[in-house]
């Protein structure tokens, strides 16, 4: 019997798990996939938003403005890269300039600091490649960029290091409400917990409806992106948005924290939350949107196109609460943008809700907030020498595009929440994320996985259970 079960190992569930692992509680995180961070958290714009965008007095505004300042310490503790490079909302005419002023006022109401409106000259100085027709921009200096996969994986890993359990391949089929607890079932196993937190992303309405009266719907909204080679990474210095429209913040252009350039998303609403296909029309729209901001951009140096699914709630705001008709069942649902930014603030808020609902919270004496996760070549010369002595495989580069060593890959496999698939390794330490997209390193990573997990090479899959790579031995 667990004190708390969290459904969903995305960034929200993982952040809540880490907060809960500070206390003497039995906590379990369950997820339907064979790894953590397989949904919305792995495919998004990777932005830590400043917080001028959400309407005043919404939960989005609250958690955005509370979440953003938490990232410096959080990323230091989790040893992951985070850069506050600032964001710009670009305006082309007087009407849009007026909109910038509206966003600026909203930002002030949301208690966002370090905002200013740049004139054309200031904008061009900051972004030399910006469309010459751009008249001005709203600068929000506190906006930043992050690797959302590293963030999510590090959060859950830190939770597991501090005693949290993790059950993967656990697709919830039903939740039984008893007088003092819930029984969560999959096809083959079950978990019992006194408190349940629903952080199931695009499936959060389905999970909610298993125990509680239906009062919201999650509409899947797909966003399509281009990821460009690092040679394009210095085309912009900030996260650059157009003026927002009905479908959201529009197509942005931003460097990634690893030095690539990302363009997108172009959005559409779908019925199927699992339809992550890209389409020529919407990719074209993303390309054109980006070109409107930075005319010099070409997708000649695209290294990948991808789609992510956002959990758009029909209520228009995050749903973070104890379910009205089901005590001890909590929703963290409809976590669309700025969900990544909001995650640590949602986690803290969730703790206060649980406490209010009667969960006894006693701080753990030995909670360790820190993990070490730097890659070999990101370390100092001295640290490198020490590691090489420990294991010479830190000196063998497997991924030439991203300079990832065999030692880094071994770490990714053997860490507390270790990788078991090629994409699992990629999400943790990036081999295959570069310009050759795993063409050179894929077979090697597969071999290392097979060796380390002591399984035949053919059984190592790309990502999900049936995403096999090889079909058998040659003649």
């Amino acid at each position, binding site marked *: 019997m667990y004190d708390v079960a969290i459904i969903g190992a995305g960034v929200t569930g993982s952040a809540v798990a880490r907060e809960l692992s500070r206390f003497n509680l039995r906590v379990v995180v369950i997820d339907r996939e064979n790894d953590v961070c397989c949904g919305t958290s792995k495919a998004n714009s990777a932005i830590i938003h400043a917080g001028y965008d959400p309407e005043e007095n919404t939960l989005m505004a609250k958690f955005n403005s509370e979440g953003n300042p938490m990232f410096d310490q959080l990323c230091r503790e989790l040893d992951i890269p985070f850069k506050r490079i600032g964001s710009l909302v670009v305006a082309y005419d007087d009407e849009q300039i007026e909109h910038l002023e509206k966003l600026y006022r909203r930002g002030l109401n949301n208690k966002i600091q370090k905002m200013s409106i740049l004139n054309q000259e200031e904008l061009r100085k900051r972004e030399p490649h910006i469309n010459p027709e751009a008249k001005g921009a709203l600068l929000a200096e506190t906006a930043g960029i992050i690797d959302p996969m590293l963030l999510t994986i590090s959060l859950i890993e830190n939770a597991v290091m501090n005693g949290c359990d993790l059950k993967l391949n656990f697709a919830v089929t039903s939740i039984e409400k008893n007088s003092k607890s819930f029984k969560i079932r999959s096809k083959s196993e079950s978990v019992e917990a006194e408190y349940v937190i629903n952080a199931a992303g695009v499936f959060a309405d389905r999970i909610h409806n298993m125990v509680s009266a239906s009062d919201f719907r999650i509409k899947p909204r797909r966003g399509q992106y281009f990821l460009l080679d690092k040679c394009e990474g210095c085309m912009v210095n900030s996260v650059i948005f157009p003026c927002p429209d009905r479908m959201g913040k529009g197509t942005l252009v931003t460097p990634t924290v690893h030095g690539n350039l990302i363009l997108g998303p172009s959005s559409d609403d779908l019925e199927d939350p699992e339809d992550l*296909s890209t389409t020529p029309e919407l990719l074209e729209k993303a390309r054109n949107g980006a070109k409107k901001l930075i005319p010099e951009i070409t997708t000649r140096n695209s290294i990948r196109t991808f789609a992510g699914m956002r959990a758009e709630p029909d209520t228009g705001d995050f749903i973070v609460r104890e379910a009205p008709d089901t005590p001890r069942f909590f929703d963290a649902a409809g976590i669309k943008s700025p969900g990544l930014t909001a995650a640590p603030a949602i986690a803290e808020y969730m703790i206060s809700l649980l406490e209010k609902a009667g969960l006894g919270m006693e701080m753990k004496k030995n909670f360790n907030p820190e993990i070490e996760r730097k890659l070999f070549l990101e370390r100092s010369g001295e640290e490198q020498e020490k590691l090489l002595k420990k294991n*010479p495989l830190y000196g063998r580069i497997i991924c030439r595009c991203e300079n990832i060593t065999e030692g880094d890959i071994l770490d990714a496999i053997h860490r507390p929440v270790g990788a078991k698939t090629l994409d699992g390794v990629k999400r943790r330490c990036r081999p295959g994320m570069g310009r050759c*997209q795993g063409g050179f390193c894929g077979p090697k990573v597969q071999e290392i996985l097979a060796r380390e997990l002591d399984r035949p090479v053919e059984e190592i899959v790309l990502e999900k259970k049936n*995403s096999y*790579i090889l079909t058998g031995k040659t003649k």
Partner: protein
Amino acid sequence: MEKSEYDVVVIGGGPAGLAAAVEARENGISRVLIIERDVEPGGILQQCIHNGFGLFEFSEELTGPEYAQKFINMARKDEIEIMLDTIVTSINSSKEITVMNTEGKKEILAKSVILAMGCRERTRGAISIPGERPAGVFTAGTAQRYINIEGYMVGKKVVILGSGDIGMIMARRIVLEGGEVKAVVARSSFPKGLTRNVVQCLDHYDIPLLLSHNIVEIKGKERVESVVIAETDMKKQVIPGTEKEYECDTVLLSVGLIPENELSKQAGIELDRKTGGPVVNESMETSVEGIFACGNVVHVHDLVDFVTAESRRAGKNAASYVRGEFKRNGDYVTFSTSGGLTYAVPHKFRYSNLPDKLDIFMRVDMVYNDSLIILENRGKEIARFRERHLTPGEMIKITVKKEMFEKTEGVININLVSEKESGNEK
């Protein structure tokens, strides 16, 4: 950090690097080092187990590994040091190189450097094929490695996009391994690879070649389940209504090669946007003095024999650079191209440095029949070459005698005209 010094450091132990190193050694340079990232030398040839290599160089048909072995043996005989399983992590224009392997990091100072890093394959991401992103989409070279080196099959029912040589060779390989190749799909109206490969790899095995077609969607949540193929028009745009779904579990991509020049950029070397490789002179020297380049890192070759010849030139000149015999007299004359010729390598020359005969390599943008290649300088024709059949898959090689370039200056334009048109002019 450990430091060592060499006369010539060759980056890359594939056919280009091996030939360049051997040539430098045989031109009297004693301290030659090859740095190779793989655990054995030979480069991509080691996975090219088909034959057809060496017709020009050795007048016999060899497999890739056999061709490579000849040069590995020469390097061994010459006692050339080969640092295996080692990556160059940085290089600068002063020829200071940092390498890394399981023994740690080392610094290497070179008098001369020869870049021979080869090329990499264009991927799905580079051409943005829409659809889902399941397992089962491979570049042809990766599939070749799995099948020929690792000994594993990558799929049973395969569609191949691109009519490049590796794609066609892999089509045959898959059939020989008991797989089925549903189609080779090409966006162009002509095959991109060598004609001999169309005949020997596709025609002989009844593999359909769909010219002017493209894959417009990949389907399959976890593993490829099917692809949608459509016809394309002259501008390579999809013709609506021609879409047809092909059931398959694998897609191989043979959609082009890109010279691998990340290190060249680090060293501040000028690159040519068209070839994707360094701008080189008649001696295969790049824009940085004493740094030479050869093979697919300069421009993608069709035959390894030509790589070898080019690499020898680089090796020989690196040796003369180290000996201090390298001449820099006179101004550069540069080549430009027109009429469907996409590039010319070398990009430029100094007359005094020219060998008796200069080989110039070029490619065309589409198929041309009965054409003339005319070299012109300051309104005067220097030389002309008749070409019966030119296709983008095959490099054009012309050999021009040194004396033809006497008194040339500025820009020599190399133009492609149809023989008929040119006849009318006269």
